[in-house]
């Protein structure tokens, strides 16, 4: 048994490469590994040779150095620096790709909570400690946390991103082969940290679509967000018939919004979120600062649904399941 496990561990097949990113990260990793191994081998051989040849009492010649010390120093500083910079640029180039999700990525919301992953798909299907994703589709995971810092880690995809309370951050990947992979929380989050694990199930797009439909969805995220919009009293002010002078929110998402202080703000998820939690931070030009803060009133899950609703107000077509159709 353990022989198999060792083989699993030592062979490259031990860790599946199941995303578009994985082979690119592996290539960089193995290039660096080969360079390092070569360097270690050179040093070991060189050291052993010198240690044996110049052991005390050996007949090897001693005395002053027969070569220029400073040239040697400059030489190895230059070579080291060149190799290091090469790997830096390779890494940075890949990292920029890794951190920029494609614009049409399919969005799934994931909330970390001591000690579980709470996953919400666009059509409202919800699952815990499991994440179903379609292969061949860029998936953008919108991460947030309800308590402490967690970290979304899928080794098979070479993806990791901290979920930080108080903000929404995103990570993206495109799964390439169907299968079941580990999902770990990588940032220590308390007693049951090592129990905050789950599975990522990558499915062919049609299987994923079927899985979505089978689910327990009550209604999709924007529709639930619409209900919350009424329940939390947002509609009382932000609607055409309101007595209160509050901005209307139709088409708000993605707009360049002028602020009272003369600046312009690009309306994204962070802005919408801040406007709900800390409304006084950025005041829209032409409106008084009236709105109360909803900090501590709206839980993280509801917040995501509200933002999904606000986004859907701006979209030409409500997002059913984009990216699935070829």
């Amino acid at each position, binding site marked *: 048994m353990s022989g198999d496990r060792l083989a699993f561990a*030592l062979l490259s097949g031990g860790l599946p490469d199941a995303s578009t990113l994985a082979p690119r990260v592996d290539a960089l990793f193995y290039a660096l590994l080969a360079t390092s191994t070569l360097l270690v081998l050179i040093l070991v051989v060189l050291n052993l040779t010198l240690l044996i040849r110049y*052991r005390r009492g050996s007949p090897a010649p001693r005395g002053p*150095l027969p070569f220029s010390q400073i040239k040697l120093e400059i030489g190895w500083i230059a070579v080291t620096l060149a190799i290091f910079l090469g790997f830096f640029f390779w890494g940075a180039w890949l990292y920029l790709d890794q951190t920029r999700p494609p614009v049409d990525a399919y969005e799934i919301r994931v909330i970390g909570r001591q000690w579980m992953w709470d996953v919400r798909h666009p059509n409202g299907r919800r699952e815990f400690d499991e994440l179903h994703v379609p292969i061949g589709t860029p998936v953008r995971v919108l991460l947030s946390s309800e308590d402490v810092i967690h970290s979304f880690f899928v*080794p098979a995809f070479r993806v990791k991103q901290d979920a930080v309370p108080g903000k929404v951050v995103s990570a993206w990947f495109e799964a390439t082969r169907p299968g079941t992979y580990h999902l770990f929380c*990588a940032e*220590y989050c308390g007693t049951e*940290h*090592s129990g905050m694990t789950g599975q990522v199930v990558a499915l062919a797009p049609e299987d994923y679509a079927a899985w979505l439909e089978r689910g327990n969805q009550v209604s999709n995220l924007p529709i639930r967000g619409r209900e919350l919009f009424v329940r939390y009293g947002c509609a009382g002010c932000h609607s055409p018939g309101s007595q209160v002078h509050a901005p209307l929110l139709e088409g708000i998402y993605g707009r360049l919004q002028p602020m009272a202080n003369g600046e312009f703000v690009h309306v994204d998820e962070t802005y919408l979120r801040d406007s709900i939690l800390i409304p006084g931070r950025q005041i829209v030009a032409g409106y008084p600062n009236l709105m109360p803060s909803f900090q501590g009133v709206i839980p993280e899950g509801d917040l995501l649904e509200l933002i999904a609703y606000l986004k859907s107000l701006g979209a030409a077509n409500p997002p059913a399941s984009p990216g699935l159709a070829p």
Partner: protein
Amino acid sequence: MPDYLAAGHTVRSWLGTLDHKRIGLLYLASITVFFWIAAGAAGLMRWDLLTPQGDVVTSDLYNRLFTLHGVLMVWFFLIPSIPNVLGNFILPLMIGARDLAFPRLNLASWYIFMAGGALVLYAILAGGVDTGWTFYTPYSSTYANGHVMLMAVGVFVTGFSSIATGLNFIVTIHKLRAPGLTWFRLPLFVWSLYATSLILVLATPVLAITLLLVALERLAGVGVFDPKLGGDPLLFQHLFWFYSHPAVYIMILPGMGVVSETIAAFARRRVFGYRIVALSSLAIAVLGFLVWGHHMFVSSQSVYAGVVFSLLSFLVAVPSAIKVFNWTATLYRGSISFETPMLYALGFVGLFTVGGLTGLFLATLPIDVHVHDTYFVIAHFHYIMVGGMVMAYMGGIHYWWPKISGRMYHEWTARITALITFFGFNLTFFPQFVLGYLGMPRRYHVYPPEFQTLNVLSSAGASILAVGYLLPLVYLGWSFFFGRRAGPNPWGATGLEWRTPSPAPQHNFERTPVVTTEAYHRGEPTD
């Protein structure tokens, strides 16, 4: 003039001493105790990790164990190890001074250290802390139960001991060098202690204020780092790593200094590229302050900040690599013998190279995203901290043991112990690199079964490593009382500390020595 050991035998003559050598031994005794407590915790964890279910301890206890291990090893063993034990003992001897510049401050720093240690031990006995040594907010400030405040205050207090020692070293190196001992005639160990002291003095206060803020946040319920109350948890990480990354260099620079000394002594040659090795210590200390953000590549800090920190992290690796090349080149045309300190030094060079190269993996952004917070990181920093610093510490203890005790240890026992340590270390930590790349996260009490084989290998290695650390206690302890007497200079080494009797006299030198030659100068290479 009596030697420093014969100068008094009462408890008071030790606890009230102003002699830097005795204070060095006070540190030696105290950090040995802390080391074994922390090592015991590591042993329990490795035992627990033999099975994937983790059935030796509970998750809660496991979390307390790794916190205890980290806090004690970092602040109560590694940071004081070479600077406070060997630095205290040997620095004034190396520069021909009678003592450190401020002997009372030196003794006070030991008492502060012990006060901090007492608080931390009390926090552990009272139930422990489960935040990890990094105290990440908002977990530590809001969610963790346990004695976080006590622990944080303990570390806070100990910080002032570090600052006092660093300040003392800086002033001593600047102002108390023997006549003729110019900066570029200083032994490289002194250079490394100087660079270390700069970090101690400039980084530690930031840690102090950060831990104070965490403690106050818990006490007052203010959200300095809690997003629910307007705070920013990333601010904590920035402040913490602004200290803790330079602190990593506190935990390796002195080791590099010891290795330079031992290789020069046992290869009977001046260290190749002396000036470059000396200046690279300073370069590491300065650049070390600019790379803290590489601990935060996946923390949601700005992508461009990540790129800049990655570049700087590659740059800080250059001076370290230079040192390795220069140590190797020192062997060329040397006259090399293989006493125990040399074996530890060679072990250091090998393990530090592996630790340093895997540091490049972590500086490479996409690889770090994958292996951040996995066992890869654990293996990497243990190669630096244990394979590097502890190897150098053991080597240094053996190298200066004749000066400390006046006696020789049993050479072959010590050589075999060094080999056991080297083997046990690699068996413990090499499998962790593989575990990390396969995706096993750190601080996991329960893990998926496919990781078991590698964990068993690692635990087996840990038991061998324990033997390697236990044996020196026995044979060094024995030799302290019964070993063969050592002359003033048993290794035939250069350096002022070898020109005075062993054990060192109370005031170090009969007459203040005058230096007229470069460091490691021995006329024509002999033998």
